[in-house]
């Protein structure tokens, strides 16, 4: 036993063991958690296991805790073979021996491996996606019924909550949506100007900005911003309430959580997003006008004149018509994921992420559906 960390009191290390006559293990010193790392390594190196050791003499122990006791019991053939232990540690040793008896024989929980397990995982994931879509469709139905009830009897709508959500999702979003729309207008105008100048078709930059902003980009970027800002907030708010059993409390009181929580958010967003779209359209056009003036030397009067010639109200109305659908998708996905929160704080984070990803995905999917339908209708 060569040990660097010998205790100051003697040449023995703080925890030691000796094998006598090949089958009698004498142990002593401090057998505590802090020593267990070293001790277990040294015991392993000495090649000791319960098979060779017949008896453990523990009379030299000066300190023992449950980690040390576990090591001691694992070195002995059975707990009864440990002799000479101090009266103080007898209760501890007995308790740890009971715990070892309960845990020692347990099979390690194996992780399923191999290609079959991988295939099974793909299957489970696919089933999971199917269940999810099914549940989401169910939730869309619930929300439609609840919103329909409110439409039939508007006085049952929670006005305060709706106005509150109008403010947080609409009014408070004005600065960031405005900045984003302005920059998009600038970028589109720049790109158009650079390409169209080559053909001396500078003036068509105005057409391009007008059609792109009004028909597609204004509403799309407003919706993406709202999905990131408000869809995530819906999920986190409702999720925290679910964790806190507030949603369950509503159910026991006889309140409909969907009517209480989802409907005001859906109504508020369906009002707010079209308004934000009009605002984003205007600010986006302003961005285009600024670039036109700076790069192409097209003044504001000419810009407006050209715009009114190139773009009729159809482009604007098409853009605006998409807004309520985008709003419904964002609000319903946000609320759905919020109600799905269960168990832990991590679940709130996971659901919020999913909510934003799904909302943006739904927005783009609806946009594509609109584009196809409109081209089919030749509008």
């Amino acid at each position, binding site marked *: 036993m060569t040990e660097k960390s010998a205790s100051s009191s003697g040449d023995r290390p703080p925890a030691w063991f000796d094998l006598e006559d090949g089958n009698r293990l004498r142990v002593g010193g401090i057998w505590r958690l802090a020593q267990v790392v070293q001790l277990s390594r040294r015991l392993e190196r000495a090649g000791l296991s319960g098979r060779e050791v017949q008896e453990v003499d523990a009379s030299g122990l000066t300190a023992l805790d449950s980690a040390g006791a576990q090591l001691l019991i694992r070195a002995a053939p059975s707990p009864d073979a440990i002799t000479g232990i101090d009266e103080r540690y007898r*209760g501890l040793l007995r308790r740890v021996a009971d715990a070892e008896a309960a845990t020692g024989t347990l099979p390690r929980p194996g992780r399923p491996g191999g290609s079959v397990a991988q295939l099974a995982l793909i299957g489970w994931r696919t089933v999971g996606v199917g269940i999810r879509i099914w549940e989401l469709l169910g939730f869309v139905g619930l929300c439609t019924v609840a919103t329909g009830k409110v439409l039939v009897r508007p006085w049952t709508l929670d006005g305060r909550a709706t106005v509150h959500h109008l403010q947080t999702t609409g009014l408070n979003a004005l600065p960031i949506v405005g900045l984003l729309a302005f920059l998009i207008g600038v970028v589109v105008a720049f790109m158009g100007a650079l390409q169209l100048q080559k053909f001396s078709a500078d003036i068509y930059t105005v057409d391009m900005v007008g059609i792109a902003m009004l028909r597609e980009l204004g509403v799309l970027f407003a919706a993406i911003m709202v999905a990131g800002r408000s869809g995530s907030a819906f999920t986190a708010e409702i999720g925290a309430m679910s964790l806190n059993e507030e949603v369950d409390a509503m159910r026991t009181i006889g309140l409909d959580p969907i009517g209480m929580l989802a409907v005001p958010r859906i109504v508020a967003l369906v009002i707010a997003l079209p308004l934000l779209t009009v605002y984003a359209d205007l600010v986006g056009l302003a961005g285009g006008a600024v670039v036109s003036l700076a790069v192409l030397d097209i003044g504001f009067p000419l810009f407006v004149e050209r715009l009114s010639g190139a773009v009729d109200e159809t482009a604007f109305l098409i853009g605006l018509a998409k807004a309520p659908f985008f709003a419904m998708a964002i609000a319903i996905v946000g609320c759905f994921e919020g109600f799905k929160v269960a*168990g832990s704080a991590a679940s709130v984070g996971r659901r919020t992420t999913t909510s934003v990803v799904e909302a943006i995905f739904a927005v783009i999917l609806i946009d594509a559906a609109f584009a196809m339908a409109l081209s089919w209708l030749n509008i």
Partner: protein
Amino acid sequence: MTARAKEAAKPEPAVSVRGLNNRFGAQQIHEGLDLDLLTGEVLGVVGSSGSGKSVLLRSIVGLNRSRAGDVLVLGSDLFALRGRARKALLARIGVLFQSGALFSGLTVAENIALVLKTHTGLPAASIDRLARQKIDMAGLPQDSAAKLPAQLSGGMRTRAGLARALALDPEIVFLDEPTAGLDPIGAADFDRLIRELQQSLGLTVFMVTHDLNSLVAIADRIAVLVDRKIRVGPLDALLNDPHPWIQAYFHGPRAKAAHNAAGSGN
């Protein structure tokens, strides 16, 4: 019992609080509070709602910096220590928060393993073995090791919190209302568990509680928080204390029932 009596005779208390002063806004919680937690004892701490039981516990374990006063835990001031020394002292105490405060994203075994990983360099297999040992010691079935806290009942969550508090074989264990929300049978089982662990592991226990049955069953001494100070003594001494709150507390119908139950039980 003899070992405990011998250790109690040592001059150094496990925790010593002197002149503690806590105030939140206009509300004075503690004023000149003195308390000794003796090595090897189970101290039950009682007091009305808002009397500062939890604040006292938080002041001792280093979560609440007091306005004035000295708190020595195992001879050191937690707020004076930094880095490694502070971590070493924290390894010698364990705290069971109300309803467990388990990390909700980790399984029960991972909750315990996290503590062991933070404080020791043990290999994963040893940590797993020790975590399972603590789960058994806290009276949980082994299949709860892989469960998330949300999958456990309230009583099992408390036990899992206890297993985490015991992970490093601490010398002092602080329990914040461990039997709150448990049914009487579950609470009695938990009391027995605390008593058993306290004796086999040689723990010193600081237990905030409302449960008179727990007090009668396992507390060696009782500390009552009244008038921003503390009065400590064995149950018999406190029964004769003339303070109106203490009289009402220990002589109410529930107290009598608890005392009678304990008397006939033994």
